[in-house]
């Protein structure tokens, strides 16, 4: 699949991170590939968006956030029945902590900051997932 095929104007994404810099960076990364992007400052805001009826194909979830961290938010979303692709984006360097984050219900986990290669991989995974469902 070429990079041009990857650009998708139908996909939506939610960037959940307490750092304004990371939110801006990841939002731009995703917009470059044609995604419509919203941002949330912490896990609770992300969960509240879904409770209000929002839905997203992709969620980029930071781990360390105030009020509700990424692991807790991920667990909550999965309990709510959210089937979006949830991708952890963290600077955690402990394998044990990463594993715990994955077990919260992530589909993938990457080190911050995301690169274009990471985004391409995720979009390919999303396209594969959509093809399987159709």
């Amino acid at each position, binding site marked *: 699949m070429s990079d041009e095929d990857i650009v998708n104007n139908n996909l939506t994404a939610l960037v959940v991170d307490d*750092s*304004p*810099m*990371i939110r*801006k*960076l990841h939002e*731009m*990364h995703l917009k*470059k590939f044609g995604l419509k992007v919203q941002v949330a400052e912490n896990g609770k805001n992300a969960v509240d968006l879904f409770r209000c009826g929002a839905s997203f194909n992709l969620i980029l979830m930071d781990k*360390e956030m105030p009020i509700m961290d990424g692991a807790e938010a991920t667990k909550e979303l999965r309990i709510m029945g959210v089937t979006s692709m949830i991708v952890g984006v963290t*600077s955690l*360097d402990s394998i044990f902590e990463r594993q715990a984050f994955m077990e919260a219900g992530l589909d993938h986990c990457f080190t*911050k*900051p995301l*690169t*274009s290669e990471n985004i391409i991989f995720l979009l390919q995974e999303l396209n594969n997932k959509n093809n399987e469902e159709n």
Partner: protein
Amino acid sequence: MDRNPIRRQLAIMRQSLFDQGYLDEQFIELEQLQDDANPNFVEEVVTLYFRDSARLILNIHHALYVHFSPTLFLFLFIHTHKVMILLLFFRERKPFDFKKLDGFMHQFKGSSSSIGANKVKAESTLFREYCRSANAEGCMRAFQQLKKEYATLRKKLEAYFQLARQTGPLETATRPK
């Protein structure tokens, strides 16, 4: 080679930031995200970085240097019908909280990596090694060096963006030689 002398100066300035190790490839990732619709994207992200990281540096500074708690000792002296009350304030030194320091520096390192702040990232790594070995003096030395690198990077990037605003951005983001 750009014939415009200011744009040439900008290109040279940019190249030297990579050659001298201040920036790494992550900065190029930022540049590649910038476009006509977002012509100041890199500067905006870097500005947010310096805002976020200033707070973290202050937290680390407090955790390293402001670690005294006041304790009041009251000494009562009785001497030949006179009562002397000697109030002594002792400042007790709290032990270093290496876990807290490491946590702050972990966040700082993550932010610095996001803009490609290579030297700052390296000093952060060294600081964290000292935290893990509970080496307070090492932490203090590494923190002083980190602050120097951080201040230098800030100065260089501010000068770079000031010049960039005069000329407009370079046309292509190129990998360092």
